[in-house]
C-alpha cells in the first residue's frame, strides 16, 4: 500500500491540521535542543561548576522520594477502597481525589504557616501546654517538608489509576488467591502489587513529572531545583543561554526517567482481555481492621484537604475581607483563561485523536506520543523554548513589515498568544488521552457503518463520533481546565505585563508573606477545581455504569 493510496482512503484535511499542531508542538522543544550546540556564557561555567550538581541532586531526591511515597499511599488507599467495605468508604472513594484541587504551592504555604512559630499549632502548644518546641523539628520549609507536600497533594494520581484498575481487573486473581488460602496481606503484596505494577508506575511517573514541573513549592521553600534555577538564571541574571542549557539538561533527565518508566512497566498492558472484566466484590471489614481502614483513609483526606482548607478559611476570616473588586477581577480572569485554554486544547486534541484513529500506522503512533511530550517537560523548560521561538517569529514579523513602514514590535511575545500557545503545548497530552480513551471505547465500527452509509470522514465525525465521545471530551475539557487553573510556572514566565490569575496572585501574596490575602484567592481557586473534579468523577461514573449494561 503506497502512501498516496492510504491518503485516498483517509481524509487529508485532518492529517494536515494535525501535522501542523504536532509541528507547532515540536518547534519550541527542538529549539532548546539546538541551543545545546551554541556557545556558552561565562556564567554557565560558574553554574556548571558550583550549582548544577545541586540542582540535579535536589530534583532527583524530590522526584524519587515523592514517587515512592505516592506509589505506596496511592496503591494502599486504592486497594482499601476497591476491595473492602468499611465506614465512610463511599464518601472517601471520591473525597480522596480532592487533594488534587489544591495546588501544591498553596498547600506548601498553608502548612508552613500552620506550623510556623506564630502559627496556630505552636501557639496552641505554647499557650495551652507551655511547650516551646525545637524549631528544627517544626520547620516545614525543608526538603522533607517539600516531599510531604508533594506526596499529600499528588498521591491521587496513583490512587485514581490504581483504583479503577483494581476494581475492574483484579476480581478473578483475588478470588483464586483467596481460594488458595492466602491472607489479605499476602494477597496485597504477592498478587495486587505485582499485577498492578504497570499502572502504579504510570501513576507515579505522572506524579514525578508534576514534581519536576513544580516551581511554587521549591521556590517558597528555597530549594534549588531545575525549575527555580531556570527562573533565576533567566530573570535574576538575564542569562537566557544558560537557562536554555539548564532546560536541555532537564529534558535529558526526563528522557531517562521516561525510559526507566518503560522498563519498569515491563511492556505490560494495562488491561487483560476485555471479555473477562468482572467488578471486584468488596469484602466487609470487621473489628479493628474496620476502624483502621477508616482512620487511615480519613487522616490522609484530612491532611490533603480538610486541614489546608480549614487553615485557609481561618486566615480568610482573620483577613477582614479582601477587596471584592480585586477578587472578582482575578477570579473571572482566571476562569475565563481556564475555559478558553481548555477549549483550545480540547479542539486540538480532538483533531489529533481523530486523525490518529483513522490513520493507523507509524505516523499515528508518533503523533500520539508527541502529544505527551509537553506534559513530560517542566513548564519552565517549555516557557524557555516558546519564548526563544516566538522572539524569532516576532523579529521575522518586524522584518517583514519594515518595507511598509509599519512598526510591529514584539507583537506575539507581549500578548496572551504566547501564554495560550504554551498551555496548548503543555496540556495537549491530557486532552488527547481523554479523547482517545473515548474513541477506544467506541471502536471503529460506528465510523465504518457511517462511511458505508454515504458520510465522509468529516460528516461522520460530527454526526457519529462527536456525539458518542461527548462524555470523554467533557472530562478532557475539565481536566485541562483544572490544570490551567492551577498552573504556575508557565503563567508566571509567559503572561503579559499586568496579567494575573488566581494562581499567580496567590503565589505572589504568599511569597510576600501576605498570607491572609492569598487565602481568599486560594479558596476560590480550590473551590473551582473541586467542582471540576467532582464533575469529572460524575462523568466517569456515568460512563462506567453505561459500559456495564
Amino acid at each position, binding site marked *: *500500500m503506497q502512501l498516496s*493510496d*492510504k491518503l*485516498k*482512503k483517509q481524509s487529508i484535511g485532518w492529517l494536515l491540521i494535525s501535522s501542523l499542531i504536532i509541528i507547532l508542538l515540536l518547534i519550541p522543544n527542538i529549539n532548546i535542543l539546538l541551543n545545546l550546540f551554541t556557545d556558552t556564557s561565562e556564567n554557565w561555567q560558574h553554574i556548571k561548576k558550583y550549582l548544577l550538581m545541586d540542582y540535579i541532586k535536589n530534583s532527583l531526591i524530590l522526584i524519587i522520594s515523592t514517587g515512592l511515597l505516592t506509589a505506596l499511599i496511592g496503591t494502599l488507599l486504592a486497594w482499601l477502597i476497591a476491595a473492602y467495605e468499611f465506614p465512610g468508604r463511599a464518601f472517601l472513594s471520591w473525597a480522596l481525589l480532592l487533594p488534587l484541587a489544591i495546588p501544591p504551592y498553596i498547600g506548601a504555604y498553608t502548612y508552613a504557616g500552620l506550623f510556623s512559630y506564630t502559627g496556630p499549632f505552636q501557639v496552641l502548644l505554647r499557650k495551652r501546654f507551655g511547650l516551646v518546641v525545637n524549631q528544627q523539628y517544626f520547620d516545614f520549609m525543608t526538603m522533607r517538608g517539600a516531599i510531604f507536600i508533594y506526596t499529600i497533594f499528588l498521591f491521587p494520581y496513583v490512587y485514581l489509576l490504581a483504583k479503577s484498575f483494581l476494581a475492574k481487573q483484579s476480581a478473578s486473581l483475588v478470588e483464586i488467591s483467596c481460594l488458595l488460602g492466602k491472607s489479605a496481606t499476602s494477597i496485597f503484596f504477592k498478587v495486587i502489587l505485582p499485577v498492578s505494577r504497570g499502572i502504579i508506575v504510570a501513576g507515579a511517573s505522572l506524579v514525578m513529572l508534576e514534581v519536576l514541573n513544580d516551581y511554587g513549592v521549591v521556590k517558597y521553600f528555597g530549594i534549588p531545583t531545575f525549575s527555580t534555577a531556570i527562573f533565576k538564571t533567566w530573570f535574576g541574571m538575564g542569562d537566557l543561554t544558560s537557562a536554555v542549557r539548564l532546560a536541555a539538561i532537564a529534558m535529558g533527565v526526563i528522557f531517562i526517567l521516561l525510559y526507566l518508566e518503560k522498563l519498569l512497566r515491563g511492556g505490560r498492558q494495562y488491561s487483560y482481555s476485555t471479555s473477562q472484566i468482572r467488578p471486584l466484590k468488596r469484602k466487609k471489614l470487621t473489628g479493628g481492621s474496620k476502624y483502621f481502614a477508616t482512620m487511615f483513609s480519613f487522616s490522609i483526606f484530612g491532611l490533603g484537604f480538610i486541614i489546608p482548607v480549614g487553615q485557609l478559611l481561618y486566615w480568610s476570616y482573620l483577613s477582614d475581607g479582601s477587596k471584592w473588586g480585586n477578587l472578582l477581577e482575578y477570579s473571572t480572569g482566571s476562569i475565563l483563561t481556564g475555559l478558553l485554554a481548555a477549549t483550545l486544547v480540547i479542539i486540538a486534541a480532538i483533531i489529533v485523536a481523530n486523525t490518529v484513529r483513522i490513520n493507523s500506522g507509524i505516523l499515528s503512533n508518533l503523533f500520539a506520543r508527541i502529544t505527551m511530550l509537553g506534559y513530560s517537560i517542566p513548564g519552565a523548560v517549555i516557557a524557555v523554548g516558546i519564548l526563544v521561538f516566538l522572539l524569532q517569529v516576532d523579529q521575522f514579523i518586524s522584518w517583514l513589515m519594515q518595507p511598509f513602514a509599519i512598526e510591529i514590535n514584539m507583537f506575539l511575545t507581549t500578548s496572551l498568544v504566547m501564554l495560550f500557545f504554551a498551555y496548548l503545548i503543555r496540556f495537549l497530552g491530557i486532552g488527547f488521552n481523554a479523547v482517545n480513551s473515548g474513541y477506544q471505547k467506541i471502536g471503529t*465500527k*460506528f465510523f*465504518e*457503518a*457511517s*462511511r*458505508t*452509509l*454515504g*458520510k*465522509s470522514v468529516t*460528516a461522520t465525525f460530527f*454526526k*457519529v463520533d462527536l*456525539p*458518542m465521545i461527548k462524555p470523554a471530551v467533557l472530562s478532557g475539557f475539565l481536566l485541562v481546565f483544572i490544570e490551567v487553573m492551577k498552573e504556575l510556572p508557565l503563567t508566571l514566565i509567559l503572561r503579559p505585563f499586568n496579567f494575573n490569575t488566581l494562581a499567580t496572585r496567590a503565589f505572589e501574596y504568599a511569597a510576600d508573606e501576605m498570607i491572609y490575602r492569598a487565602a481568599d484567592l486560594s479558596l476560590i481557586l480550590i473551590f473551582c477545581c473541586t467542582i471540576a473534579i467532582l464533575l469529572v468523577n460524575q462523568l466517569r461514573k456515568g460512563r462506567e455504569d453505561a459500559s456495564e*449494561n
Partner: protein
Amino acid sequence: MKINNLSFKYEKNGDQILNNFQLEVNKQETICFVGPSGSGKSTVLRLIAGLEVPLSGEIFIAGRTVVNDQVFIPPEKRKVGMVFQDYALFPHLNVAENISFGLGKISKIDKSRKVNEMLDLINLNGFANRYPHQLSGGQQQRIALARTLAPNPRLLLLDEPFSNLDESLRDEIRKELKNIIKQIGITTILVSHDQADADFMADRKIFIYS
C-alpha cells in the same frame, strides 16, 4: 460486481490474506462466502466496501471501477450497503434517525415516508422512536438491514447476519431476510459459518480457504 486479481495484507510485513482473488457476481444474485475462520471472508467484504485498500487488483461495481492501481473511490461514494456483524446501530440515535441516517439531503416528508416504508418492509412499525438498547437482538438486526437498504445501495454485504441470534430466531429471520432480498432484487454477498444458512440463502456458494 466483479473482482480481478485482488491481493491484500493488513500490515506491511504481515501475512498475505488474499492472493489474486477472483470473483464475479451477477445482477440480483445472492452468493455466500463459506470457509474456515480467519480465511479472509470479512476482509473481502471490507475491500468491496472500501474500508480497506488492496495491495493490487481491481474491483468493479455496477460497471464502475471502484478501485484499481489509479482509482480509489472512498466508501461513502460506493453505494455499497453493509450490515455489520454486531449491527453497529448508532446508540445516540433512535430507530427512525438510524434508518434515515444515510438518506442525504432530502425533505423531511420524503424522509419520514422512506422510514415508514422501511419499517413496513421489516415489519417493525411503531418502533420508530425506540433507541437501539431498547430492542432485542433480532429487532436490532432488522433495523440495521433497514438502515443499510434505505439509501438504495447497488450491492448488499452481510457479514455473518445470523451469528448473534439464537437458534429459535434463526429460522424465521433467515426466511424474512431472503424474502426482503428477493423483494427488492438487490445483489447480495453474505458470509456465513453455517452450511445450512448458506444453502438456504444463496444461489451460489463460494469457498474461501486460508
